[in-house]
């Protein structure tokens, strides 16, 4: 029970307090804004502090709770891995706590039950914290399902629309199946080890085929939750439906909890690793990354688009994890550590910028009540701060220097480029191809966010209510500002971050990155100075210096005036908002190039004395290929089975007689 663990306990207590206090909102709807959400933010802060403490001190704290099964009292354990993810959870929750109060004002006049919103938000955070802290399978599963269940209630929060209900149902169903798979995975470990305690599972000696079974189950369960393709289709349905600050939590943090579960299960509990697992993870990761970004490009509902990008980024994280597994399985612990650090780095980056972007989307929603890109435009001049922070988010998620997204992708590339050290030539070719997919993904993401920012924030407003947009309250801006600043910091000072993350691979693989920070805070050299080096601070400084130089150079001599005029546009009539490129138009070339991957319905319906209508519907192939067949199967099976209940008493008696005779026959 060390300081870090006490802080973590404080965080859990605060989260529960937030949940409890929001019950007051039944009577006084202001309670949510004035009490519950601030407590939520404090819980985030405490979690952040606990995580950092655990990472920096590197000492492990354990404690036993008065919960759980009689022969298995629930234990909690705060080690480096848990600490890292606590920090991830904490920082986004803190921002949400800042952002929420202003945001939920909008609901106070609505009919939705704010008590439910606040209560389940608190339980949601509690669940996530406990998942990370749990040290035995039972507490883990309980916390895990609490997390799923409470987030489900949040998805179903605005349940007037049938679509939202459907999304919530699908979400809970997938969460349930995933949870069962994870449970069975733990069951395998428990049946070979001495019970459900994680320490017992670490000690367990699984025969390899059973280890693979456990791995498959865990990969299925956690991957389902994380939204890996091809099981991702529920995610873009569910995440956007929740209130925006909850979407930020779900996309930014909950997916990371799934990543945590996967890392904990595979790298910590299953000590021996097979390279085939790495290949599987790598391939699935590539698939998710590519499909995620391509489908994101096809969306014009801002929040759905962001949700699809979560699929993409989770894919990138799993590419890193796959590399880590490959290297560890082939005995290159050092490279494994490199890949793992890359994955973890991207984990926290994605938490930051995806949280930032969802909060930005929430801000737009808050001031324009609009989610459809095709209606937006020119928001930069109407909400400058949100515009600026959103731009930072776009740059970060497009993996452009000098922001944080670039650092993690750079590290992933570096890890992939060490593939020449692998013995098997096949793997040596496979890995660089994966990195090519990663490159393609990054470029497509950039394209996608040029579309988003260009259509939403630049140009002119495409609808009246967007033209009337107003800046959002200070709290919301502050939250976005916090995350944006962190995006820059993590991009500029990677050596410090890696210094902190290093504790995780040391704990899991027994090997850190010795050279990463060997050349001082200025130089990031993951493997060695000769192999690769990147100095984000210098890049920033030089960029600034050169910019200053060029500005200064142009200030001299020549004419300084800038005249405002109409857009030239090759001399056509001054452009009207309707003449702007739409989001759909922007992504048309890519839609045409990758047409194979989409299920496209396109039609032009001419109308009398009116311009013709152009209909386009791009649906996820996963539905047709995976989801609907299963549903149909169950339906037909049910239709067959109900014949049992034919309604005729004599048939029922016949069943009884038949059963009796058959059993007697079999027995004797």
């Amino acid at each position, binding site marked *: 029970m060390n300081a870090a663990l006490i802080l973590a306990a404080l965080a859990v207590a605060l989260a529960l307090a937030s949940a409890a206090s929001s019950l007051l909102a039944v009577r006084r709807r202001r309670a949510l804004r004035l009490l519950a959400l601030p407590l939520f933010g404090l819980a985030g802060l405490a979690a952040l502090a606990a995580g950092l403490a655990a990472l920096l001190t590197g000492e492990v704290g354990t404690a036993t709770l008065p919960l759980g099964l009689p022969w298995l009292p629930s234990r909690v354990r705060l080690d480096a891995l848990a600490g890292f993810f606590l920090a991830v959870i904490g920082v986004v929750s803190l921002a949400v706590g800042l952002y929420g109060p202003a945001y939920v004002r909008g609901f106070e006049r609505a009919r939705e039950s704010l008590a439910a919103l606040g209560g389940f938000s608190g339980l949601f955070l509690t669940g996530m914290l406990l998942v990370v802290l749990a040290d035995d399978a039972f507490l883990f599963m309980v916390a895990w399902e609490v997390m799923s269940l409470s987030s489900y209630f949040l998805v179903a929060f605005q349940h007037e629309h049938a679509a939202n209900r459907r999304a919530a149902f699908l979400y809970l169903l997938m969460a*349930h199946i995933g949870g069962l798979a994870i449970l*069975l995975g733990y069951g395998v470990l428990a049946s070979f080890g001495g019970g459900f305690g994680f320490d017992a599972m670490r000690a367990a000696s699984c025969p390899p085929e059973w280890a693979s079974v456990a791995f498959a189950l865990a990969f299925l369960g956690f991957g389902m939750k994380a939204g890996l393709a091809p099981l991702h289709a529920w995610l873009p349905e569910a995440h956007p439906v929740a209130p925006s600050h909850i979407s930020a939590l779900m996309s930014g943090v909950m997916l990371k909890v799934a990543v945590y579960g996967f890392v904990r299960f595979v790298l910590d509990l299953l000590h021996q690793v097979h390279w085939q697992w790495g290949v599987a993870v790598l391939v699935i990761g590539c698939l998710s990354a590519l499909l995620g970004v391509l489908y994101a490009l096809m969306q014009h509902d801002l929040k759905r688009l962001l949700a699809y990008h979560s699929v993409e980024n989770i894919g990138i994280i799993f590419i890193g994890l796959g590399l880590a597994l490959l290297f560890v399985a082939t005995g290159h612990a050092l490279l494994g550590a490199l890949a793992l650090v890359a994955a973890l780095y991207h984990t926290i980056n994605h938490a930051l910028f995806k949280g930032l972007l969802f909060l930005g989307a929430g801000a737009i929603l808050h001031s324009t009540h609009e989610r459809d890109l095709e209606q937006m435009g020119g928001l930069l001049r109407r909400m400058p701060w949100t515009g600026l922070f959103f731009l930072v988010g776009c740059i970060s998620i497009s993996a452009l220097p000098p922001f944080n997204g670039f650092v993690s992708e750079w590290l992933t590339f570096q890890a992939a480029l060490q593939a020449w050290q692998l013995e098997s030539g096949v793997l040596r070719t496979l890995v660089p191809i994966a990195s090519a997919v990663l490159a393609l993904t990054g470029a497509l993401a950039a394209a996608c966010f040029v579309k988003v920012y260009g259509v939403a924030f630049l140009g002119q407003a495409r609808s009246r209510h967007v033209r009337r947009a107003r800046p959002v309250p200070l709290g919301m801006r502050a939250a976005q500002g916090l995350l944006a600043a962190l995006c820059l910091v993590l991009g500029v000072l990677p050596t410090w971050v890696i210094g902190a993350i290093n504790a995780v691979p040391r704990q899991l693989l027994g090997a850190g990155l010795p050279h990463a920070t060997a050349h001082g805070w200025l130089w990031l050299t993951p493997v060695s100075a000769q192999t690769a080096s990147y100095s984000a601070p210098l890049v920033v400084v030089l960029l600034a210096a050169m910019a200053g130089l060029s500005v200064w150079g142009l200030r001299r001599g020549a004419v300084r005036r800038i005249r405002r005029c109409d857009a030239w546009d090759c001399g056509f009539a001054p452009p009207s908002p309707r003449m702007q490129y739409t989001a759909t138009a922007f992504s048309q070339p890519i839609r045409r190039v990758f047409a194979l991957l989409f299920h496209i319905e396109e039609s032009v319906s001419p109308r009398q004395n009116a311009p013709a209508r152009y209909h386009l519907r791009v649906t996820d192939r996963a539905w047709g290929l995976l989801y609907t067949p299963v549903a149909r199967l169950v339906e037909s099976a049910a239709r067959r089975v109900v014949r049992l209940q034919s309604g005729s008493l004599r048939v029922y008696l016949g069943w009884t007689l038949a059963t009796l005779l058959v059993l007697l026959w079999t027995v004797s």
Partner: protein
Amino acid sequence: MTALLLTLLAPVAGAIVLALLRSLALAGWVNLAVSATSLAGAAWLAWSVALTGKVAGLGFRVDAFNVYLVVLTAFVGLTTAIFSRPYMRHVCAQGLTTEAGMRVYHAMYQAFMFTMLLALTTDNLGVLWVAVEGATLATVLLVSLYRTPEAVEAAWKYFILCGVGIALALFGTVLTYFAAQHVVADPAAGLTWSALYRQAGGLEPVVMSLAFVFLLVGYGTKVGLVPMHQWLPDAHSEGPTPMSAVLSGLLLNVALYAVVRLKMLVDGSLAGTPNPHLAGYLLMGFGLISFLVAGLFLHRQRDIKRMFSYSSIEHMGLMTFAFGLGGPLATFGALLHMLVHSLTKSAIFITAGHAAHIAGTQSIDRIRGLIRTQPAVGWSLLLGVAAIAGFPPFGVFTSEFLLLTATMKTQPWLTPVLLSGLAVAFAGLFRHLHPMVYGSAPEGQAPVQANMVPIAVHLGLVLWLGLAIPGYLAHWLDRATELITGSHLL
């Protein structure tokens, strides 16, 4: 012993009094008081069992296994009585039933409680049979209480199917007695379970396996095992709601209890034979089939109470499977599941009764927007279904966790089946639940005067069991586990 008599005789006396009592207002209270007395007796009994380990005599035998079921039965009986007092008065006010009907209801309610408790506590297989048959007789009139054609039909089917099943069970009992005659000296003791259990090894295996088939089909009909389950949804959906609650929460448990007791005997007698786990395999087979089939049934429901009765079949199947699986872990899980399932399921039925009352119909398609109309009912239905679907922090999850891991340990290749079954059942429940609780309420739908106390108590208990199983209860279940499987878990 006194405690036992108190527990048993209170309902008898209550039944007689209530049969004669004319005032309706009073009847509800008397019913409540009698149940309370019986519960007090049960608690006392449990206490003495906890002290001495076993209470026996007068042909009764109360050990760790059945005493917790006794307490559970008395408890659910009490809470349901609390719920039924205002509810049945509302029913009567609606003119669904007559004064006489109400008298029958109250008298039979207590008679039913008596048969349940008798079946649980008796040591004599014959008396067990008599009591279970008595339970059918006591409830069959309640099922047809409303006298609608559907109600009468349901009651008739219930009566015939269970009667036939029970008759077969009697044949099994005769065979058991026959097998016993060669090992148990005193013919009068030839049906006392404890005597048989002591010398189970000597029982003729061939006879016992035949006997077990009859008993399984017989009592299995009452448990609601597919394909003898057809009476169950009808009876649950057409009877008055309190009846559905106790049927689903108690009767099925008692029948399963009988099956388990007999399985213990058969296992003892088959110990030396080529296939010693015959009974276990039979139970597993039936359990699995019921589990899967019921899960599929859930998808095509239109009546809210029917739906939840199918979910009862599903859970009964799961428990049967677990008992068949054997082993301390699975048995412990199954015992726990009995407990949490009957608590949760009776709470759900009570809530469903309120929901049907709000919407004025039991048809799922016409129950809408409960959360909007009456948040208390809507949320408790939502939470109750979440609990029964096996979501933590509710107790059902704990037991399912144990069952699944036990299966993983002993019969791993069955786990995919269980997994898909759970998923299918879950989908079946929630696809119907969503439109009922969520969405906007239809015009003119008004909240009703609902008594949320029993629901709150039940769900609270289930929640508690999910978070932490209190030590004494764990110890208790563990002793029961030891009785059944012969080995400790703790």
